[in-house]
């Protein structure tokens, strides 16, 4: 019995992917960012993380897959004045029900380039952020909205050269409101 449990533990350890949150916590400065992560092509990384308040971070995905469903934090949250998260060349899948895979709020900002986002609840939510640029990306098969902005018209967002398709409640939605 002990051997069975041991091999199950060993198998689950070896079979599990890398935790994106643990990599984010260990990331070092680079390219002008406070934290720079360079991921490995086709490697699956598990879970999301909450970006450090006021920090500038960047993820170069290089085709890596971020599977949000298996982590303690099941979205990537960017929040607060001066908080920046730029991401390129990542596949982001399986965000949890009721939240967005990429969530920018409270004056956060970011540049999203060459992302593939599949099977999330909301794809990207930009809630009273400072600026957001989304381009060259694919946002498909969400259970709710593809790209969702809640905005006071004081912030800047640019959305171009994207394929937004088959998102159940709408590909793009905007709610103008005071923040």
């Amino acid at each position: 019995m002990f051997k069975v449990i041991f091999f199950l533990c060993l198998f689950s350890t070896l079979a599990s992917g890398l935790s994106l949150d643990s990599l984010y916590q260990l990331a070092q400065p680079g390219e002008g960012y406070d934290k720079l992560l360079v991921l490995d092509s086709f490697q699956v990384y598990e879970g999301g993380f909450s970006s450090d308040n006021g920090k500038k971070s960047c993820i170069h995905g290089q085709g890596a897959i971020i599977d949000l469903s298996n982590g303690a934090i099941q979205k990537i949250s960017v929040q607060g004045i001066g908080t920046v998260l730029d991401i390129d060349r990542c596949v982001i899948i399986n965000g949890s029900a009721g939240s967005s895979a990429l969530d920018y709020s409270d004056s956060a900002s970011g540049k999203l380039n060459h992302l593939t986002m599949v099977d999330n609840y909301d794809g990207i939510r930009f809630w009273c952020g400072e600026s957001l640029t989304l381009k060259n990306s694919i946002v498909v098969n969400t259970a709710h909205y593809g790209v969702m902005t809640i905005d006071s018209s004081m912030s800047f967002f640019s959305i171009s050269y994207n394929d937004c398709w088959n998102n159940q409640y709408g590909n793009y939605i905007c709610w103008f409101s005071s923040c």
Partner: protein
Amino acid sequence: MPYWGEFSPSPGTGNISKDPMFIDAANKDYRLDSLLSQCVNRADDGYNMGAYLGLWKQPEEPESVSQNLLCQNIPNPFNNNTRIEYQIFSRKATENVSLRVYNTRGQLVRTLVSEPKTNGQYIAYWNGRSEAGIGVSSGVYFCRLQVGRSYSKAIKMIWLRPHVEEQPGN
């Protein structure tokens, strides 16, 4: 008065709404079918939309090949293998080249390369093991490229030791 509204028809230029035609989404292969996908070559930089740029566009040549270079290792942080690319340029036919890994105390951990090399681009790998083949502890390590006596550059690498259960009795 807050209101909801769909962007009409879309919020910016160049947006489309088509099935991207992934090769095999059920098995997490989100590359595009190059014949059927409408996302091929539709990005503003001429590549495919999405995370996989496509192979049709030739990689750009380095801006200058007339210098020594040590690139940041990929991936970083890493827990398996990491790839270290470097370039040698010398006016001599060959130049003594060394690529060594040090810990934060400046102790040599592993010599990856130590031999004369001709001009060109090279790749080395490090698997987080010391010269004796022992897995090193997690942490920051430095990789230093030395070309002849005149060029030296170091990069910072972060090694995460894989967590593997020890076999009972070992």
